């Protein structure tokens, strides 16, 4: 049974990642009054990229990229999908540290490419990560202290009967803080600083050719899936719709429904993200840091203080 889950969950995550990117381009096109490519365009791109013979700059150039995609898939395995969590050991702390593997892998491999555009891209990516980690850590700590557990699956189970944490008062502040930094986590327009195509010729991806570019797009899709799934699991009770499907609790149908509900919630949050992306120009890295360290951190800090007081 667990073997099926181990194979199924990453596939769902990858497919959802591609769907997000396809949807992203379609919605952006629609907002800009044009037809835009079909939703399956990222898949077509990846098939084309896999068939291209390109250039490698050395061992780390390949190993880093493989590490980053593997790291993102492993994180997808550790996140609860509906009410199935394939691996639970170590809880949210392990998920937080595993989320480092993706960016670090990309950083190592594009650093090896010897192109200053990539180095500038990576230094911006890490600065942006430092920027949004301040409020994100406060938010995660607030949730963990509020539910007094470090296990993500536990948090989802508690939300099933205690109601979404986005509704309960102290976590509302943290939810707002997390939502304010969601564009930074997903890497979309206001915070598309690391992969800015015009300024630093797509940053870390500057030297990625055929299959490298395919792996990098897959990793980007997974990164968006992880950011959204974390938000939905922590704040929107991932996988349960006000207990409507309580009766099919742990049957096959129940799990399936939970997954579908989770994905729909993620799609809704992603749609809002795309609208933000369409409305904003790209920030400079100083503006991004100044923004991330003021408003979202304020909300997150208020949330954690309220939780420490009310317990």
């Amino acid at each position, binding site marked *: 049974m667990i073997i099926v889950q181990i194979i199924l969950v990453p596939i769902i995550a990858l497919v959802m990642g591609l769907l997000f990117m396809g949807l992203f*381009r379609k919605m952006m*096109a629609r907002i*800009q*009054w*044009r*037809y*835009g*490519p*079909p939703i399956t*365009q990222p898949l*077509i*791109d990846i*098939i*084309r*990229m*896999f*068939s*291209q*013979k*390109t*250039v490698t700059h050395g061992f780390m150039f390949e190993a880093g990229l493989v590490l980053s995609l593997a790291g993102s898939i492993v994180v997808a395995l550790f996140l609860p999908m509906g009410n199935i969590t394939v691996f639970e050991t170590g809880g949210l702390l392990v998920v937080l540290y595993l989320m480092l593997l993706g960016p670090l892998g990309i950083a190592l491999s594009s650093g090896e490419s010897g192109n200053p555009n990539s180095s500038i891209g990576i230094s911006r990516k890490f600065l942006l990560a430092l920027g949004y980690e301040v409020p994100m850590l406060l938010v995660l700590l607030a949730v963990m202290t509020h539910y007094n557990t470090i296990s993500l699956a536990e948090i989802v189970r508690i939300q099933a009967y205690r109601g979404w944490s986005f509704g309960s008062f102290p976590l509302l502040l943290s939810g707002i803080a997390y939502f304010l930094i969601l564009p930074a986590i997903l890497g979309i327009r206001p915070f598309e600083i690391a992969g800015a*195509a*015009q300024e630093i*010729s*797509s940053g870390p*991806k*500057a*030297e*990625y*050719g*055929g299959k490298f*570019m395919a792996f990098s797009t897959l990793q980007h899709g997974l990164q968006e899936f992880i950011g959204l799934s974390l938000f939905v699991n922590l704040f929107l009770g991932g996988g349960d719709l006000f207990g409507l499907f309580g009766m099919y609790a742990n049957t096959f149908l129940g799990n399936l429904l939970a997954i579908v509900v989770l994905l729909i919630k993620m799609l809704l949050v992603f749609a809002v993200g795309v609208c933000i992306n369409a409305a904003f120009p790209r920030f400079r890295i100083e503006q991004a840091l100044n923004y991330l360290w003021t408003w979202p951190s304020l909300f997150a800090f208020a949330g954690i203080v309220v939780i420490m007081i009310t317990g």
Partner: protein
Amino acid sequence: MDRNQLVKWIKAPAKMGHKYSLHVVYFCTGCGIIEIPPSITARWDAERFGVIPVATPRQANLFLITGYVSTKTLKAIIRTYEQMPEPKYTVGFGSCPINGGMYWDSYNTIKKLDKYIPIDGWIAGCMPRPEAVFVAVTHLWTLIDKEMADGYKRYREKYDYYRANQEKVFGEMEWPPLYGKE
């Protein structure tokens, strides 16, 4: 468009992939580049054909030579062409790359671009309109389908001729030959 025919995808996914995802190198070689922005924005929208400008030649498989090619730009064009991953296609815009066009007797422009890098398709017109660009893209589809868009194969097989011609123009080249010792 046979984009949704699953049978063709299963038989030859690489070919279909190349047809419906032509990423263009965003490199302004001549006066024709002014036609690219309108073709990728709202009015003509090249993205519905899967054509998107990308930042670096490494990520691209279509190279548009838009307009006359001066000797200085030829060096950059050859370098960019060699940096693109293998199945790559080039389309020449207007008459200047064909035979020098209006600058046929100029001391500084390249007359027949075909002598230096292989060109898969030409678009006539002294700066063709975006619709002509889409005609070129669809024409390229048929070429890819019939395996006739083999510019990169010609470049690999006859590389010494191309390299000799390039060296004739520039004298000594700054970078080593691409398919030197393989």
